[in-house]
């Protein structure tokens, strides 16, 4: 079956661009050379990346298959509600401006590589640090799986368009891409991800700007697409007032979660200067404009009958963006656009795998076996980054794609529960470790309990479909409700401990959070 304008020219362009991507990944090892046997060099690029490079890296890191596949699919299916992704990114970067400069400073002073490193010293608590590390790993794995779902959607369209309708070919291509990715992550670490990140950004911007201009011109403007969409269901032109609290709380809750994800923290710590980190972060909402435009692709699809038929035929909304592009753009450009989405998933997957490999090696294994040498730690992190990638890949092959998206939603709710231990602790030492751990546990139990109760008991769903819970008649994002429980336990527990004579024993002094202390050499 022919799909739009896909032909062998598209495939050739796609393969050439993938080859360039692979070259840049391996070349990264030579870029701003450092001793890659050290964990700070391998996983943080030696903390030597400047304003522009960190901007590209964080842009490439934070705007993922979630942006290219999940958000447009959400807008396609649920309409204006999914545009919450726009205030979400705006607020997410404000949260980053509040927290990342401090985390960066204390990490520079005390050679931290992960958030759990900080938690361990701040609370003088190994169990809390391990809870934060494990939460990071558990929440991040489905996020990597989501990237793979996005890449799968691209390959599916490309192969279908060429008349190859075989799941085996799709899976083999994915395995091949992952071997290349794992090999260069292993050799180049974060440097490889930073260089390929620039390449990804160029391709993504080229695609977004071209499509957002070309498609409306072709189909008779946005108004045509909106008219068709609105005629199916009245949820596209504006937001139904019953969803105001849902919109607001999804945006705020997701904004809190964004910089608790290990990959976001990893990217921020790679900056070489606190002031430069602030500027790179401030420029990231510009990247959010790209996200907003891609979200609109989910509505533009309604103006392209061929793409609409394909999505309805396959029942897979994840195909919205690839299908839109395939039915409207010339063959060579389809190659560029599809590789942009494909690489758009690969680069974050690499950084995510690096970040959770660090957590696993430093904050889980090293806690159990403290005698591990720094060299062994780095080697372990490198191998684990490979293991985690293939674990996520295996997961996507075994379970339906929709599960990965749902687990990623659940991951967002769970990762929010590390907010008191990581973000609040940057500003106060008065949180008592056991209460914070109890708050974390209470938050996670509430989150999972609400998700289960709402989806399976109340709505009788067979899978996890909504992360909204009606509280006093208003829909609220479960992450915020769980965070409320978490904060209540943490704060009340700490107050009681304080009254009983507990006093903070933080190993970190205030100055270490605020200024880079030059060591006398």
């Amino acid at each position, binding site marked *: 079956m022919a799909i739009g304008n896909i032909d062998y020219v598209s495939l050739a362009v796609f393969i050439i661009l993938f080859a360039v991507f692979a070259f840049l990944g391996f070349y990264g090892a030579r870029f701003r050379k450092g001793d890659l046997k050290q964990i700070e060099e391998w996983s943080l690029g030696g903390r030597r990346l400047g304003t522009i490079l960190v901007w590209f890296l964080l842009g490439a890191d934070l705007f993922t298959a979630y942006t290219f596949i999940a958000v447009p699919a959400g807008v396609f299916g649920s309409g204006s509600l999914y545009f919450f992704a726009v205030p979400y990114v705006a607020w997410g970067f*404000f949260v980053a401006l509040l927290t990342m400069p401090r985390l960066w400073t204390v990490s520079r002073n005390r050679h931290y590589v992960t958030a759990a490193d900080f938690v361990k010293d701040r609370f003088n608590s190994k169990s809390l640090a391990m809870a934060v590390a494990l939460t990071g790993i558990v929440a991040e794995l489905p996020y990597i799986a989501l990237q793979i779902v996005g890449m799968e959607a691209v390959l599916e369209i490309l192969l279908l368009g060429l008349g190859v309708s075989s799941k085996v070919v799709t899976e083999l291509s994915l395995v091949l891409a992952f071997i290349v990715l794992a090999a260069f992550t292993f050799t180049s670490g974060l440097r490889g991800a930073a260089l390929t990140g620039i390449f990804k950004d160029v391709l993504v911007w080229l695609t977004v700007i071209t499509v957002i201009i070309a498609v409306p011109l072709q189909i008779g403007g*946005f108004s045509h697409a909106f008219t068709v969409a609105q005629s199916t269901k009245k949820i596209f032109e504006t937001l139904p007032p019953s969803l105001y609290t849902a919109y607001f709380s999804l945006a705020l809750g997701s904004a809190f979660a964004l910089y608790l994800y290990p990959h976001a923290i990893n990217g921020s710590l790679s900056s070489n200067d606190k002031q430069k980190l602030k500027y790179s972060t401030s420029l990231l909402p510009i990247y959010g404009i790209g996200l907003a435009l891609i979200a609109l692709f989910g509505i533009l699809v309604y103006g392209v009958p061929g793409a609409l038929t394909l999505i309805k035929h396959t029942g897979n909304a994840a195909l919205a963006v690839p299908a839109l592009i395939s039915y409207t753009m010339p063959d060579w450009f389809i190659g560029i656009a599809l590789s942009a989405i494909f690489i758009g998933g690969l680069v974050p997957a690499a950084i995510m795998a690096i970040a959770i490999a660090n957590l696993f090696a430093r904050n889980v294994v090293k806690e159990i076996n403290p005698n591990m040498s720094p060299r062994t730690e780095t080697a372990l992190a490198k191998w684990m980054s490979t293991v985690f990638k293939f674990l996520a890949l295996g997961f996507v092959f075994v379970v339906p794609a929709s599960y990965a998206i749902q687990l990623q939603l659940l991951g967002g709710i769970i990762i929010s529960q590390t907010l008191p231990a990581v973000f609040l602790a940057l500003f106060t030492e008065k949180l008592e470790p056991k209460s914070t751990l109890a708050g974390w546990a209470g938050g996670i139990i509430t989150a999972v309990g609400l998700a289960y109760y709402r989806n399976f008991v109340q709505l009788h769903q067979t899978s996890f479909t909504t992360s909204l819970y009606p509280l006093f008649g208003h829909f609220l994002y479960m992450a915020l409700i769980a965070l409320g429980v978490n904060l209540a336990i943490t704060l009340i527990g700490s107050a009681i401990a304080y009254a009983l004579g507990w006093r903070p024993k933080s190993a970190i002094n205030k100055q270490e959070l605020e200024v880079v202390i030059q060591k006398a050499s």
Partner: protein
Amino acid sequence: MNVYYLAVGITFLIDIILYSVFSVFNKVQPELLGLPFFYWYQILMLVVTTVLMIGASTIKNGEVKGSGNR
């Protein structure tokens, strides 16, 4: 409390308000190139967000400059 965090806090609050006044922006008209106001207002606010954030980031004297005890 130092000036930098105060500035980020205030600009964050302004931004939250800009994205919460649904009665102002949850409308179809005025359209821009066929795009309902609901959408283009929020995209435009990303530009405003960037300006607010850069403004807050330029405040450098926010942090204590080595005035600690040691």
